[in-house]
């Protein structure tokens, strides 16, 4: 009885407050935790203040992975969001779900100029020539090194777009010259990095051009470029200049701690970590592009992060409001401030001209590097992400393969095992979904 009363009472209360605010509520689900959540709420506040018609209500949903299931399972109910943030590897799932309205529809209606928005980022979330979702928080993997330590031991820093052997050289020198006190390098066990190594080598993981020209039916991780990437790591493991921090969130935290406390000199991480690495670092931070195979030019890496999607289970005006919010979030100043507060890259090309970013670069010149890497890459099928369902599981299997190699396993065998498991899953998933 009491519960019933509270429910009734609570309902009437919320109805009242809604009546005071005549704006159309736009429920926004996101997965930004910590400092990024504050920055995101700033964006939302900015939008709400600029608006008389719509009001965005942000709601935090936990991790990317879990949020996907919530979005899919609540679709069509009153709790589902009008606009939501879904991460890179769920793109195929979202497109196939049929639960979203492609942002292309609104772009066409508004004649919105998307050419200002980073093309590599856009390419990741488009399919069949249509922009499905709008990239929002975007990062790229980059390589960080401890410039102060390199200087201390008189080691020539790596070039801005280094090859595998450039990094190996620095890592080995650092390990030897520091009298084995500092490990040369680490690469976190993270499927994203393996995928980016392939992208940067211009290779593809799934057939049908990584899914951009049709639903993938076959995956092949065991290709020469993966082998070369893993061999690079293995060589460093053998020379003992490599330290393994494992996989998962704690591994990320541990390797950052190790880097900041001079235990390891080089690591690969998302550009979004840059804020953390400059703020708490007594050493000078060095940044390069993601390393590429020795005999190839860098093809450029795909983006990571997430995009904003519009649900199609909400009325027209709500969907319209969602797109207004998306447009606002991509304004040059908003993106510039976003990059400054979070480390995610500003996607609007005009953001680079803003005072916010100019000041930032003047203070920390190295923070320019990730943006340059993004700007330099020309989108092609290899560096536009993998449009395939079941990427979460695929990544887990990639990570198992990486761990196997890190622990001394045979590269070909590990990759074959992963291929078999990924393909089994892919075939079953295609069968379950009725894809050809």
């Amino acid at each position, binding site marked *: 009885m009491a519960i019933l009363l509270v429910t009734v009472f609570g309902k009437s209360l919320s109805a009242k407050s809604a009546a005071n605010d005549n704006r159309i509520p736009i429920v926004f689900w996101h997965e930004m935790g910590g400092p990024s959540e504050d920055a995101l709420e700033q964006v939302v506040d900015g939008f709400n203040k600029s608006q008389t018609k719509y009001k965005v209500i942000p709601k935090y949903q936990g991790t990317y992975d879990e949020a996907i299931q919530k979005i899919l399972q609540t679709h069509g109910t009153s709790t589902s969001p009008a606009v939501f943030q879904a991460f890179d590897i769920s793109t195929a799932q979202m497109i196939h779900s049929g639960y979203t309205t492609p942002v292309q529809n609104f772009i066409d209606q508004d004649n919105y100029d998307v050419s200002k928005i980073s093309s590599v980022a856009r390419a990741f979330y488009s399919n069949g020539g249509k922009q499905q979702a709008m990239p929002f928080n975007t990062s790229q993997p980059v390589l960080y090194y401890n410039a102060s330590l390199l200087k201390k031991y008189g080691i020539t820093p790596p070039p801005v777009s280094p090859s595998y052997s450039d990094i190996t050289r620095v890592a080995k020198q650092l390990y030897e010259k520091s009298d084995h006190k500092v490990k040369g390098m680490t690469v976190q066990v993270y499927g994203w990095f393996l995928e980016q190594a392939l992208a940067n080598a211009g290779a593809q993981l799934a057939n049908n051009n990584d899914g951009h020209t049709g639903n993938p039916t076959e995956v092949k991780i065991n290709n020469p470029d993966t082998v070369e990437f893993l061999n690079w790591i293995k060589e460093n493991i053998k020379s003992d200049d490599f330290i393994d921090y494992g996989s998962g*969130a704690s591994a990320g935290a541990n390797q950052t701690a190790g880097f900041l406390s001079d235990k390891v000199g080089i690591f690969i991480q998302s550009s979004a970590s840059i804020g953390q690495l400059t703020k708490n670092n007594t050493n000078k931070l060095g940044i390069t592009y993601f390393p590429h195979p020795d005999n190839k030019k860098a093809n450029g890496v795909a983006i990571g992060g997430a995009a904003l999607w519009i649900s199609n289970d909400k009325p027209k005006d709500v969907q319209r409001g969602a797109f207004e919010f998306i447009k606002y979030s991509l304004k040059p100043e908003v993106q510039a401030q976003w990059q400054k507060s979070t480390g995610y890259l500003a996607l609007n090309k005009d953001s680079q001209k803003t005072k916010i970013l100019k000041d930032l670069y003047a203070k920390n010149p190295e923070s320019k590097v990730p943006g340059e890497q993004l700007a330099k890459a020309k989108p092609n099928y290899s560096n536009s992400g993998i449009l395939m369902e079941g990427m979460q599981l695929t990544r887990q299997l990639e990570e*198992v393969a990486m761990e196997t190699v890190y622990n001394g396993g045979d590269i070909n065998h590990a990759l074959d095992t992963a291929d078999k498991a990924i393909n089994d899953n892919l075939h079953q998933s295609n069968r*379950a*979904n009725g894809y050809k």
Partner: protein
Amino acid sequence: MLKTSTTNVVPEKKVEAKQRQGFRLNANDKYYASIFLGPSLLVLTLFVFYPMLKTLYISLFLTNTLGNTTVFTGLDNYVKLISSPDFLSSMSVTLLYVVAVTVLTVSVGLLLANLASQKLPGIGIFRTLYSVTMGVSVAVAAIFWLFIFNPSTGFFALMSGWLNLPVVNWLTSPTNAMWAVIITTVWMNLGFTFLILLGAIQSVPSTLYEAADVEGASSRYQFFKITIPMISPTLFFVSTITIIGAFKSFGLIDLITKGGPTNATNMLVYRIYKDAFYSGNYAKSSTEAIILTVIIAFFTLIQFKFLEKKVNY
């Protein structure tokens, strides 16, 4: 039975009244039964029977991206799982974990409880220390141990640095990670186990030990021949709780290893969670859930058989 015996005792006139009352109850038996049983049946149906049957149902299909059942495959999911080396390794990893956690928790708990049951000055401090993990949440424990295991700045790493030993990769080597998770779980379990066992040991009548002292039994002999048999019901209880807890271990795994490296700590429960809520493969995770249910049911059965036969004296 009870009713007739009451009516036999009461005098004649009252019998009639009693019987009438009894009949009225009888006539309304179904009504009362449904009133009393209804709510719990409803709750059980909604939250236990329906989900269980639904899980069983889903496990006979393939599910698509949206989690809907699409293609009926019969027992295919089961056949696939049972023949998948990946799943079998999960099973053996789980069993290894459950056995190691239970054996270590109970034996270390017993050792500490036995030490702390000695009547020595200042023993109260140790009793408090040993039981302190009862008040520690999984999250706090996980963070605490992650700090300890950190290969660059962790306690173990610093120790080996001072002693000039090679750093052990606690969380990145498959065997070590398993031990890391086992150690953490045992550490978490110890407080509760210790307290329960201490209580049991202290309630063993002291004259039993005095009698044994007089008869010349060594303290080792007394421990194995008196303490252990006397607290065997408690030992059994603690083991059961630990086994079931270990099978359900989730929080620590999620926070410390996420099932890695190379699935070395991918216990069944964690696997079910990951397959459903990360990969969205509800058919697979339903199948795994059913298999886990069968395994746990099997263990429960064994334990009850054992309970009836062995432990009660």
